[in-house]
């Protein structure tokens, strides 16, 4: 009953908002004959605004959930946990880390920190670590092996910390995990999936195992990982945004999804037997990029488990789960390129037989997060063309021999209202997050104090406005490349600090800058009355090169840190596992 009510509420609010916004945009066109161009404009706008309103209502609901002190129906609240139960488990829990040609020092520093944190809980004997290496580089492989051996010696953890290297990288990450399940899955009841950059607190891990024990229908318990350890300005802004705004989105998502949540591929605990029985992936019809091996396996695995009747929960209120992220715009876009291909493959599953609406919605949201960019671009271009046409229409005052003049109707109010609604849906969640934070003075201090956090939010809003058109062009390019059947595979992610040189920035953003200038000139000469409306959409493109270089800088990251800007609690008061990780990294 709760599930139906919550889902109906969420869907109704999103659909109602979409229809309202569509009506606003269609109103000026209804006065005359609806042209084909106008019809497409309204249709594309409807699709885009539906995506925006889903996120918006998720955030609003999440805000109210936090405001009333949390969700009584969340997995953490409905589970009665007896901590000691973990010791009575017949099988240990595996902390599984699939890796592939990544920095071995970083990997093992993270693993050491996690393991030490687990040992400090007093339940260390209930856990084993399994490094699943797909590394093909022989030098990195030797380093991994030695660091594994040294870690095992240092912790005196013989028979507790394992390492396996696959000679053949079949099925990429999902194949790596599948191979683990096939060979050693029977040894474990649960596995906690970690990425090479994951960090998880020992208490969080123990809590997750206890919940899984108490909830036998749950196949996956996903935690929302927070980005940490960022040094560049770009990384720090994204880290701040994720930390501050992410909470209300997670709470909202958990509210409507309940037991039919999603899996994000890492920082989650999985019931091994359920996973092995229902989550083996087939190959998609056709060749890459849209067919072949499934790249973004997590959403599909979640859908398969959901369809098999298993529960998947997003534990929005479990903290102590962290990850790292790309440190500059170019690396961020590169990661997006991989995710784009992976998510577009999911289009297949929208046409899968016997799949529930909620599974399709999860997959559709992933697909739309990338398809939305080319659609926004088309929408902006059509809007420009329509504006040009309207600007060149001569008003007819005396039609059909009518002796009384027909004055042209102004729709400025409707259009301004529409713009405000759209902007509101994008920015209100940010200000609600800020509002929620401001109600918690102790937390405000950890975010850099009142002045620091308010300034940070304002600056982040400006930065995200400038970044949006850049990402829109990047994603449009990626979608087109994929539709033109250019596959990129799944290269290892770049996570190390990397300040951009002028040459790199020009190579990456040169074309975008030219497009920005060309668009600005077109707007200025053909639709000058829209100049100021379009300016925010092209300013990010024009400033792409200096902006990208500026935000990639670690020194700017340090300076803003000194000014108490973009601070997060994990930065100002690092939790134990992050402190341990930093110590491990310094040892190297």
């Amino acid at each position: 009953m709760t599930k139906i009510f919550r889902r109906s509420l969420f869907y109704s609010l999103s659909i109602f908002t979409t229809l309202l916004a569509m009506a606003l945009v269609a109103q000026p066109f209804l006065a005359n004959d609806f042209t084909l161009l106008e019809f497409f404009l309204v249709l594309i706008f409807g699709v885009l605004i539906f995506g925006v309103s889903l996120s918006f209502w998720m955030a609003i609901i999440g805000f109210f959930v936090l405001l009333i002190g949390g969700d009584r129906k969340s997995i953490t609240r409905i589970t009665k946990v007896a901590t000691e139960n973990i010791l009575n488990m017949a099988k240990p829990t595996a902390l599984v880390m699939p890796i592939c040609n990544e920095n071995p020092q970083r990997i093992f520093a993270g693993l050491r920190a996690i393991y030490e944190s687990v040992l400090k809980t007093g339940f260390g004997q209930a856990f084993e670590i399994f490094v699943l290496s797909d590394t093909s580089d022989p030098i990195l492989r030797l380093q991994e092996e030695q660091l594994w051996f040294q870690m095992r010696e240092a912790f005196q953890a013989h028979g507790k910390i394992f390492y396996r290297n696959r000679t053949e990288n079949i099925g990429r990450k999902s194949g790596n995990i599948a191979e683990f399940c096939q060979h050693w899955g029977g040894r474990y009841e649960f596995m906690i999936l970690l990425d090479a950059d994951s960090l998880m607190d020992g208490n969080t891990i123990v809590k997750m195992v206890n919940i899984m024990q108490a909830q036998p229908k749950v196949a996956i318990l996903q935690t929302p990982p927070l980005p940490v350890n960022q040094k560049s300005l770009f990384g720090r802004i994204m880290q701040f945004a994720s930390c501050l705004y992410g909470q209300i989105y997670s709470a909202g998502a958990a509210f409507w999804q309940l037991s039919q949540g999603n899996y994000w591929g890492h920082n989650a605990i999985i019931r091994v037997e359920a996973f092995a029985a229902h989550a083996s992936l087939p190959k998609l019809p056709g060749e890459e990029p849209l067919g072949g091996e499934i790249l973004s396996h997590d959403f599909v695995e979640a859908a398969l488990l959901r369809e098999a009747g298993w529960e998947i929960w997003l534990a929005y209120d479990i903290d102590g789960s962290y990850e790292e992220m790309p440190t500059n715009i170019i690396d961020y876009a590169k990661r997006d390129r991989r995710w784009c291909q992976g998510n577009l493959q999911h289009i297949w599953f929208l046409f899968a037989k016997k799949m529930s609406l909620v599974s399709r919605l999860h997959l559709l949201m992933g697909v739309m997060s990338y398809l939305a960019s080319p659609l926004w671009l088309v929408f902006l271009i059509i809007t420009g063309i329509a504006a040009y046409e309207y600007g060149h229409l001569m008003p007819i005052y005396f039609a059909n021999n009518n002796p009384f003049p027909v004055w042209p109707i102004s729709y400025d109010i409707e259009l301004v209202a529409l713009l405000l609604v759209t902007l509101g849906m994008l920015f209100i969640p940010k200000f609600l997050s800020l509002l929620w934070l401001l109600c918690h003075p102790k937390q405000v201090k950890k975010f850099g104090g009142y002045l620091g956090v308010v300034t940070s939010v304002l600056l982040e809003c400006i930065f995200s406005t400038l970044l949006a058109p850049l990402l829109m062009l990047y994603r449009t390019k990626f979608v087109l490349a994929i539709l033109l059947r250019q596959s990129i595979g799944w290269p290892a992610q770049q996570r190390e600090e990397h300040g951009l040189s002028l040459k790199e920035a020009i190579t990456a953003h040169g074309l975008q800058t030219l497009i920005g200038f060309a668009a600005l000139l077109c707007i200025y000469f053909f639709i000058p009355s829209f100049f100021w409306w379009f300016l925010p959409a092209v300013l990010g493109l024009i400033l792409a090169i200096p902006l990208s270089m500026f935000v990639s800088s670690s020194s700017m990251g340090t300076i803003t840190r000194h000014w108490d800007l973009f601070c997060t609690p994990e930065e100002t008061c690092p939790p134990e596992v992050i402190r341990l990780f930093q110590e491990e990294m310094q040892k190297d």
Partner: protein
Amino acid sequence: MNLHQQKKLREQLMLFLQQLHICDLKLREQIGDEILDKFTFFLREVSYKKSLKIIQNVALAYFNQALADYLLLDMSKDCHLITGARAQILSQMQSTDFLFLNEGSSPKLKIDFQSATPPEAPLEMPEQKIQFLFATPSAQGSSHA
């Protein structure tokens, strides 16, 4: 590959053999040249980057074979034991020249024979049948590894 790249390839191979703690220069050169002689023809067709990876993997396979022979293990059956032993030897930073020399002159190596993986506990992972409106998927190799 041009002459400069061939020279660079040899240098890189020697460095890799050094990373495997083969300390004796002559032994390194002997092993390195043997690998290069065997693969020169094949490498002609491949880029430098790929060639480097191939010869490093061949060198590693040489090392593994020598270690397996020394420990009386089977390369294919005991690969996780060999991984464990290799990590142990290389972590101890001692010379591994003895693996390639006659048994009589070599120092005895103390290895505690800890496998890198636990005993297998297999679990079946049946492939999920998904039907699409327009096409049928095929099997993914990973599920039958």
